């Protein structure tokens, strides 16, 4: 298993630096699309929350606050471990880079674990529109809209996080193992880190939308 090897830029690039910059900009272009994707979703949430403030406040009390808060801490920490992995890669500390990536991976899996438990609680609490939604005393029909947003937004976020986990696994099991991440060229890892932090950023907005409504 090579620890590193000499990497030449692809034929269309003048240097590895140019190739890395292009890869990073490519990810930012993709993230602009993602911003509009999640932005439109959150916009519809605001429209409905402004239309039905009381209904949303009552319905949101059933959201599992401790799960959402724990997941926020996990994701923020995982963004830090990802940055530490990049720093280790830049300084050529291979084993440290691998350790930080495994830590990021573990935090990602923990997030999905807590999310899975939360979904289990939600199903038991009968807050799944279209499957087993039960209106509780004091709730109005518009409260169901909150839960539609909850399932769509958290589901899409979980899909994005799973893709992030897949990308880290690809880095660990393929690119790093083959010695393709070196101190002179670690752009693929940076691209994955940018994506990972963006998924974290989405959760930073979903958290107040879902878990902090109607708590006071």
């Amino acid at each position, binding site marked *: 298993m090579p620890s590193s090897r000499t990497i030449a830029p692809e034929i269309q690039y003048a240097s590895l630096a140019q190739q890395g910059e292009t890869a990073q900009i490519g990810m930012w272009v993709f993230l602009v699309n993602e911003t509009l994707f999640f932005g439109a979703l959150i916009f519809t949430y605001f429209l409905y929350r*402004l239309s039905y403030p009381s209904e949303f406040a009552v319905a949101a009390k059933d959201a599992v606050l401790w799960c959402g808060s724990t997941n926020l801490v996990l994701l923020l920490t995982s963004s830090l471990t990802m940055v530490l992995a990049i720093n280790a890669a830049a300084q050529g500390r291979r084993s440290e880079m691998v350790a930080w990536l495994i830590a990021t991976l573990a935090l990602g899996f923990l997030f999905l674990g807590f999310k899975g438990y939360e979904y289990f609680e939600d199903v038991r609490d009968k807050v799944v529109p279209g499957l087993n939604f039960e209106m509780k005393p004091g709730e109005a029909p518009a409260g169901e809209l909150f839960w539609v947003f909850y399932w769509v937004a958290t589901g899409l976020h979980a899909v994005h996080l799973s893709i992030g986990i897949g990308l880290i696994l690809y880095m660990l099991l393929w690119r790093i193992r083959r010695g393709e991440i070196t101190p002179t060229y670690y752009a693929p890892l940076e691209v994955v880190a940018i994506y990972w932090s963006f998924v974290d950023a989405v959760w*930073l907005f979903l958290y*107040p939308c879902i878990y902090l409504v109607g708590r006071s």
Partner: protein
Amino acid sequence: MLLMAGMSLLTAFLRMGVWAPVLEFTIAALQVAILFILFMRLKGPPSLRWVFAASGFFWLLFLYGLSMTDYATRHSWPTQRVEIENPRD
């Protein structure tokens, strides 16, 4: 970042009325700004990243701004509604 998350959680339990969501989303926006600038390395070369990050922000502003020109000028929106008491409080 974690302290800011704690502050956000705290504001949800203080009786701040309409200011609670304003504060919560301001904190979220600040956290995202820190995340973008430091964690996603928006600061530093290549400077072209700023162009794409800014374009995403402006497209989002267009989306929100132009959509709100419709909703904000509707006479019946947001509709005046009767407050619902939650018996589980």
